[in-house]
């Protein structure tokens, strides 16, 4: 190839390189990166989740930047949800915008989907993310309708409008259980 041809190719490369910074991301979807060792340490220290009582206390205290994300189906969310929570489908969770200062708590039926969503958010760099360990079921059992005499936090139960129930009695009202 002659000198003119080489210069033409260099010119094409130069134009392609110069325009690249303004072209946006080449990835079709947001792509995260997982530091597995760090995540394992967070899980081992049990810093990946909150209990229902802890979440209730955060809500009551109006913890700055708290954002409760409910990953359950729309009908389950409509039937009951943690006060102040927002429903987000798990498929759109990776593209949901979260501010760096926000503390995100993920809620699902039994904690499974929320734990998986927690991994997604960690991979995308949202370190202030947690999941409700036992899901909405734990919220109902420990906050909204704890068994009388074994109430973990009676003041929180009263604050959220719940009531203790007799030993062996089913929860008076609650979402469908058995999901993830």
């Amino acid at each position, binding site marked *: 190839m002659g000198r003119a041809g080489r210069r033409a190719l*260099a010119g094409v*490369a*130069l134009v*392609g*390189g*110069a325009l*690249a*910074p*303004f*072209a*946006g*991301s*080449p*990835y*079709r*979807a947001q*792509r995260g*990166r*997982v*530091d*597995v060792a760090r995540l394992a340490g967070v899980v081992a220290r049990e810093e990946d989740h909150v209990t229902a009582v802890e979440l209730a206390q955060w809500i009551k205290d109006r913890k700055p930047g708290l954002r409760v994300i409910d990953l359950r189906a729309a009908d389950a969310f409509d039937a009951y949800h943690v006060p102040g929570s927002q429903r987000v489908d798990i498929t759109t969770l990776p593209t949901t915008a979260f501010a760096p200062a926000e503390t995100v708590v993920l809620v699902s039926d039994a904690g499974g989907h929320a734990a998986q969503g927690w991994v997604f958010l960690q991979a995308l760099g949202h370190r202030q993310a947690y999941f409700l360990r036992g899901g909405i079921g734990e919220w109902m059992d420990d906050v909204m309708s704890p068994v009388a005499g074994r109430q973990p936090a009676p003041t929180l139960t009263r604050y959220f409008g719940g009531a203790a129930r007799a030993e062996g009695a089913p929860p008076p009202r609650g979402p469908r259980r058995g999901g993830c």
Partner: protein
Amino acid sequence: MSAPLPVFDAGSARVLELAAALAIGVGFGWALERAGLASAPKLVGQFYGTDLTVFKVMFTAILVALLGSFWLARLDVLDLARVSVPDTFLLPQLAGGLLFGIGFVVAGLCPGTSCVAAATGRGDGLVAVAGMFCGVLLTGLLFAPLARFYESTGHAAWTLPEALHLPYGVVVGLVVAAGLAGLCAAEWIEGRA
């Protein structure tokens, strides 16, 4: 009756993958040979600043692949998420790179060019390929004591945008600028030699 190689039992997709790999490999080897990279003196010339063909070919390939993959992905022709990126193991790969460089200077050939040289019937290419296979065998036999180092300092697939905390497009622009500057410098150095 089974196929002569077990891998062919995996289905036609695997056969197609192997056929594509063979075609790409032959094409790559042909391009290397046409660029004159089967010659050990030509390859070693880059270490003495007398012939920077290898440097120019490799940097041209890097720029073509970088710009091609970036713009094809941006135009939605290529899904970058499906392009395999090997994991980064920093210290083991630095050690491997150093060993690779020493072998490159000593043999005057790298793995790809040694295969091309061997295919063209050059004795030094055959010796280099034999040495490469002996090295692979030796590493396999001694892997147990090396395993801890081999698996150390893992960073998964660590790319320049992640390492530099810069957007992908900015990294593309910087690499293109550095590559073109390097190619101009190589022409200048060759012109002085």
